[in-house]
């Protein structure tokens, strides 16, 4: 078709725009020179310095603690909520409340929680970030599990009940196994979002216990160093691996169901 020739320009522009900065970051993370701006040969030096950076190590540990804790909480609360909303109520108001954390601007949730913690005198620390991340983590788990529920076969649950199983047995032995792929996907999403989250952590973390994004933020504000390039490259590698593995996994589970 004639029209599509012209469309190739913005199409390729989009991909160049999205990937050029990433390529530059990765290339410069192996730059032997001190300046993060001109390439003077290949080195692994910045990766070594990164490994020795105590701030980043602390930030990473804090981030993993927060992400693991909030993922567990989000997965339990979100799964129960999804089943409850789909099967035991027709209230659109409750539906909206369940989705609210996913659509609310992060800044608004951040100041809300800061004000709330201060009003009920909760000291800030890793626990306050963990509880805050659970608010949106739970909403995303619930949303993913609900799409899975929409495709689930309700006749199995009915059969289980007709055969005399109580609601708990039916839930544990019929509903949960059917939902397992959705729950796993939701948990992965909650974990990734928590690891990456900056704004809410920035408002609800104690200055002495920063998460990794907060450490990166202060490094970036302080100035450009090749060490950040190395860190950025590592984070890119991790995210790319997770996304590609998740892509493979969903294709696998889809082909089985």
């Amino acid at each position, binding site marked *: 078709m004639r029209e599509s020739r012209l469309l190739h320009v913005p199409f390729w522009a989009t991909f160049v725009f999205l990937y050029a900065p990433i390529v*530059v970051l990765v290339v410069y993370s192996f730059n032997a020179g001190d300046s993060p701006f001109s390439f003077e040969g290949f080195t692994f030096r910045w990766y070594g310095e990164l490994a020795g950076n105590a701030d980043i190590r602390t930030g990473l540990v804090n981030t993993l603690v927060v992400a693991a804790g909030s993922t567990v909480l989000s997965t339990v609360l*979100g799964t129960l909520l999804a089943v409850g909303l789909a099967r035991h109520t027709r209230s659109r108001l409750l539906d909206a409340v369940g989705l609210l954390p996913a659509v609310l601007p992060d800044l608004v949730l951040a100041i809300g929680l800061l004000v709330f913690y201060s009003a009920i005198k909760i000291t800030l620390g890793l626990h306050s970030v963990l509880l805050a991340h659970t*608010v949106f983590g*739970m909403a995303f788990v619930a949303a993913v599990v609900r799409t899975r529920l929409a495709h689930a076969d309700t006749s199995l649950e009915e059969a289980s009940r007709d055969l005399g199983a109580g609601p708990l047995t039916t839930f544990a032995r019929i509903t949960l196994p059917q939902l397992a792929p959705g729950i796993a996907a939701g948990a992965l999403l909650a974990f990734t979002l928590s690891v990456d989250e900056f704004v809410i952590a920035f408002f609800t973390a104690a200055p002495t216990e920063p998460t990794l994004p907060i450490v990166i933020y202060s490094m970036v504000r302080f100035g450009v160093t090749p060490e950040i390039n190395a860190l950025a490259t590592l984070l890119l590698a991790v995210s790319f691996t997770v996304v590609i593995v998740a892509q493979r996994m969903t294709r696998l589970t889809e082909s089985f169901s």
Partner: protein
Amino acid sequence: MTVDSPTRRGRAPIAARLVLLGPGLAYLAGFLLIPLALVLSYTVFRRGRFGGVVYEATAENFTRLFDPLYLDVVLGSVRIAVITTLLALLLGYPTAYLIARLPQPWKTIALVAIVLPFWTNFLVRVYAWIVLLSGPGLVNSTLLDLGLIDEPLELLYNQGTIVTGLLYSYLPLMVLPLYAAIERLDPQLREASANLGARPMRTFVSVTLPLTMPGVLTGCLFVFVPSFGNFIIPELLGGGRSIMVGNLIRDQFLKARDWPFGATLALALLAVLLVLLFAQAWTARRYGRA
């Protein structure tokens, strides 16, 4: 069926409802609804001398909102977010259109390639632009080497840089809903239009665009919302000279310690977003579900 089964059935749903809905809704009430209600209530109170709130009703936060000093920042943020959204639409529509027409497996590969940068750390993506655009950065040194300029350009720290950073961060959120809308389009409709003598441009304006309008609106909303309330990109790429409403809110809470006015600014932010949400729902209904 046994005799006691109806009563067990009647009781079970209530217990199940409590177990399933109770914990999640209680959590959301405690950590979402109460905090939001607190922020809303702060808008009508006075600030405390050392931060915090004095519970003494006042309207001064709202009158201050219309002070040109603050109103300009709010309107400036709307402008930056609108420009970002339009640019994202201009780049995103043709991209989504071509992806929808790619054969497999290229279609999946292109879609994953669009989403991948979005799953990498937000701050790292912003940082990449500092490296590219700063005084001795790659863009300047390339232009110098090519002899196109004699001295480095001031590429960082202006509104254009903020728009670039926002566009870079949220472009995938425009492409995905557009792709979903274009993918669902029946190709026979365009063929029919062409067979009836319409030129490609006419077909696009009268057939393709109206039918994909819900996708356009969703994409615009997805880009506008995070752009409008952003404070990291304006701070890191804007150099503090042209701050957006997000910076203002952050400063009221963490620097000026004027929580009531910060809460009022947040309410203004939510009000703008709510108006847009209703406008989107209204237009989407007008165009029907494509």
